[in-house]
């Protein structure tokens, strides 16, 4: 079962990297960027019988390790196949 975790800095925490990227884009002529934030994408393949179970398991991983909840929020997505890692992705 493939699950996707999106980890973002909490609202209110200055995203220095996002701001730097936005500035750099501005320099390249992309003045139309109103806001940009950088986060982490974690794609996990877990052994789980159902999407529900997989999600619960990954939620536990997030709380234990994947996100630091003082700094970060996370969302877990299992919805549709199109969001998953491209075929052939290997480590």
């Amino acid at each position, binding site marked *: 079962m493939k699950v996707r975790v999106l980890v973002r800095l909490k609202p209110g*925490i*200055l995203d*220095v*990297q996002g701001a*730097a990227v936005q500035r750099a884009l501005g320099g390249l002529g992309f003045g139309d960027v109103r806001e940009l934030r950088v986060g982490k994408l974690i794609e996990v393949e877990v052994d789980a019988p159902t999407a529900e179970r997989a999600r619960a398991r990954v939620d536990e991983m997030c709380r*234990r*390790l994947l996100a*630091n909840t*003082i*700094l970060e929020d996370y969302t877990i997505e299992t919805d549709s196949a199109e969001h998953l890692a491209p075929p052939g992705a290997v480590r």
Partner: protein
Amino acid sequence: MRFGVVVFPGTWSDCDFHYVISEVVKQPVKYVWHRDRNLADLDCVVLPGGFSYGDYLRAGAVAGRSPVVEALPEFLAGGGLVLGSCNGFQILCEAGLLPGALMRNECLQYRCQSTSLLVENVDTPFTRALRPGQVLTMPISHGEGKYHAEPETLRALRQRHQVVFRYATAAGQVTRAANPNGSAENIAGIINEEGTVLGLMPHPERAAESAIGGTDGLQIFHSLLGSLVEDGTFTKR
């Protein structure tokens, strides 16, 4: 005082702490492997700098959940002291033994440079040999040292005098320019409520000999030992 220096596979300041404790401070010291939970024969556990488990996700994240760190609460309950420097500070925050978190430096670059630290709390076992308002010189070396905490946490830290060191100018002014990594309120080091766990980003072990970065870092050991530095050697008080 018996010291234990924790070794994660990616730790690199372990040897430096070991060297300073045994050769300069001349105290008994041993290495503690990260899988070890037995801290019974120690008085002070040092979590040194480095990249504990590679730290590719977040500095200290994995180490904060390691066996040796899980054994720390019991060690503390038994009267032990814990000193975390650099990666050690990051680990202590990740483990919840200190409040807040350390984020990527505001400049988005690694920084290795000398810093001046204003001493704010001398009422701790780690700083009792210091004077309030004293300024220490110690180097930093980190990419993720920007201290962050919620406003309530920062307020509480202030109220309970838990901020031990702040980045300052050589004259002791806490200014934005003196802040090397964007830390909230220039925080460089904090202590827990009980006064038994000190975390700081700077490296005291790199300021323990006059030939290498001066001797201001020794003051922390000197405080721990309740002894005085005279001519570079320790004498029991």
